[in-house]
């Protein structure tokens, strides 16, 4: 990077950290630290919800997916508005009005301590390890792009989040998220502008999109009902509803965002921001990938977007084969460019038959280029021993560093880093909240002063921050372990949703029923994932349904909930009806 880009990066990072740290003055008690004294405006809470999901993996991976696979991935989000509506009328008022700090706290009021503690533990395990995944992916990419050691980029991403989260609490996290969102959206528009301006003279957005469409990148809808395909209209509108209900309704990293709103009505409004804008935002991110594809159809593009991978292959025994492949690629690339130019000319003349022929030609030439790139990636995998190597995550960083003007490149690199930082900050804050509220205050020290819990909360955030740094530093070595734990995490997402469905919708459900149901659900998902080809989105449906069915059956044969639990349940529902009516 140019020194000016480094300057932009340093100034923006310093500003974000300083702005977060100064929030300390508003954080005088535990409610301020964990819930921002419930005074965050709905729009800021809503943007924070969106920023927490928009991790660096989205900025790097989703744009790359748009480049390689087109707009198909947007179907994944079709169920999100429906999930937000369901949560707005069910769990949001329930959590908000019962005055809880964590979603799991409610489970003890409704069921028992073991159900609360076990679901909290599952959250700590899955989120704790996902911090590693959130850091690892961008850290690896940025270390290769900058030529810095992995440790340095991992710490560069993680440390700012640790500092401002530890000092400023959830308020620092949320206001930083707002700035991050603004920076990311600006960055995406800037990159789209650069990609469009980089098209040959006389060509505009529609020409670029037509070229991308001919190469299959503009197909959105897939109506096939195929349980093994994760990205179809049906998995997006049906199965994804379960995933999003679970993520936004039972995952503390999301629940905590809307618990900071000023009222239950504002908490709902903050969720509905995602309901309105998540699909357009995701479409924008994918469109960026599609337009970068159009850009690289007319401008020179490397066969593989990772220079380090190319260097490694060049130094291996496969160097000769790779060089021959590169020659083949350059010819195929040139022919594809000619086919794309032919298509644009055919469009200009308005001859449908010529346009149809040109489209078919471009599709065939693009398949050729894709096939050669596939062989090149296989050569990299063989030469480097990295069995999962794929250059999808390097496309956008490469575009930023090679095509953006000095200054803007720095801005965009900061946007990617902050996308990771804001996700980590949100996770650290929620991990600390669950550690303190659901474990320390529940089991170790039920009675204590506000100042004491605030100190413990800061220490917990710092410890989780250290853990995040450690996982990040050793991310490369822990790669397979992180993958295993994240896979394990996907086993209980739907199952936890099932527990909350029992808690909220089945008055007769007992703590034992929910607890046994949770294990049954996790077992069913593990079995489905191991022995059937069913795509992961449907695992959430399996988990939730099994928990509810088994939970209801067990509740019938086990004694009812003790009186105290019943009354707590009744009180919570009473609160809902009083406050939300």
């Amino acid at each position, binding site marked *: 990077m140019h020194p000016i880009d480094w300057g932009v990066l340093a100034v923006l990072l310093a500003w974000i950290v300083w702005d977060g740290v100064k929030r300390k003055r508003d954080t005088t008690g535990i409610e301020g630290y964990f819930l921002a004294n419930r005074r965050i405006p709905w729009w800021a809470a809503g943007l924070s919800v969106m920023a927490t999901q928009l991790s660096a993996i989205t900025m790097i991976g989703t744009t790359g997916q748009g480049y390689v696979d087109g707009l198909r991935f947007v179907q994944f989000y079709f169920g999100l508005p429906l999930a937000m*509506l369901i949560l707005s*009328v069910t769990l949001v008022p329930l959590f908000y009005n019962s005055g809880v700090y964590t979603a799991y706290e409610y489970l003890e009021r409704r069921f028992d301590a073991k159900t609360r503690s076990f679901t909290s533990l599952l959250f700590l395990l899955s989120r704790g390890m996902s911090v590693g995944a959130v850091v690892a992916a961008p850290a690896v990419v940025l270390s290769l792009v900058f030529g810095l050691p992995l440790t340095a980029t991992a710490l560069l991403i993680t440390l700012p989040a640790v500092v401002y989260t530890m000092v400023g609490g959830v308020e620092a996290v949320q206001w930083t998220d707002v700035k991050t969102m603004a920076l990311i959206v600006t960055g995406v528009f800037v990159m789209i502008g650069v990609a469009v301006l980089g098209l040959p003279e006389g060509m505009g957005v529609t020409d670029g999109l037509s070229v991308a*469409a001919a190469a299959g990148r503009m197909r959105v*809808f897939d109506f096939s009902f195929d349980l093994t395909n994760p990205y179809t209209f049906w998995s997006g509108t049906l199965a994804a509803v379960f995933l999003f209900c679970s993520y936004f309704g039972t995952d503390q990293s999301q629940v905590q965002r809307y618990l900071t709103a000023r009222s239950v009505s504002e908490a709902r409004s903050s969720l509905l921001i995602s309901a309105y804008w998540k699909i357009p935002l995701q479409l924008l991110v994918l469109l960026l990938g599609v337009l970068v594809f159009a850009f690289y159809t007319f401008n020179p593009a490397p066969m593989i977007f990772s220079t380090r991978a190319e260097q490694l292959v060049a130094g291996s025994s496969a160097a000769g084969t790779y060089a021959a492949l590169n020659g083949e690629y350059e010819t195929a690339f040139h022919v594809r460019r000619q086919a794309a130019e032919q298509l644009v000319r055919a469009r200009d003349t308005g001859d449908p038959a010529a346009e149809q022929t040109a489209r078919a030609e471009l599709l065939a030439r693009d398949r050729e280029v894709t096939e050669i790139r596939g062989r090149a990636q296989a050569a990299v995998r063989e030469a480097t021993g990295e069995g999962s190597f794929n250059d999808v995550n390097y496309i956008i960083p490469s575009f930023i560093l090679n095509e953006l003007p000095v200054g803007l490149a720095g801005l965009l690199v900061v946007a990617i880093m902050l996308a990771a930082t804001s996700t980590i900050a949100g996770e650290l804050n929620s991990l600390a909240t669950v550690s303190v509220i659901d474990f320390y205050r529940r089991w170790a020290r039920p009675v204590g002063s506000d100042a004491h819990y605030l100190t413990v909360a800061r220490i917990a955030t710092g410890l989780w921050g250290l853990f995040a740094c450690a996982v990040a530093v050793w991310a490369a070595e822990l790669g397979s372990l992180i993958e295993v734990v994240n896979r394990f995490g996907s086993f209980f997402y739907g199952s936890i949703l099932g527990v909350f469905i029992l808690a909220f919708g089945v008055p007769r459900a007992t703590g034992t029923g929910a607890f046994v149901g949770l294990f049954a659900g996790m077992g069913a998902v593990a079995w489905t994932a191991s022995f059937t080809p069913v795509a992961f989105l449907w695992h959430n449906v399996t988990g939730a349904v099994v928990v509810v069915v088994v939970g209801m059956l067990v509740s019938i044969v086990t004694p009812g909930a003790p009186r105290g639990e019943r009354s707590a349940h009744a009180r919570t529902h009473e609160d809902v009806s009083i406050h939300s009516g």
Partner: protein
Amino acid sequence: MWGEIRKCRTEACSGLEKKVAGYIDRMNRTYLKVLGFLFVQLALLWWLQQAFL
């Protein structure tokens, strides 16, 4: 149905009836707007796909 819901807001009615009435009551215009916006988005995406295919 709406009459029944209004009745549930003012008079005592219990159990499932009250619960369902409560949900529908909260499904106010905001939620209809969200659903409407979703359908508009799906329609625009369909148009975008067809325009370039």
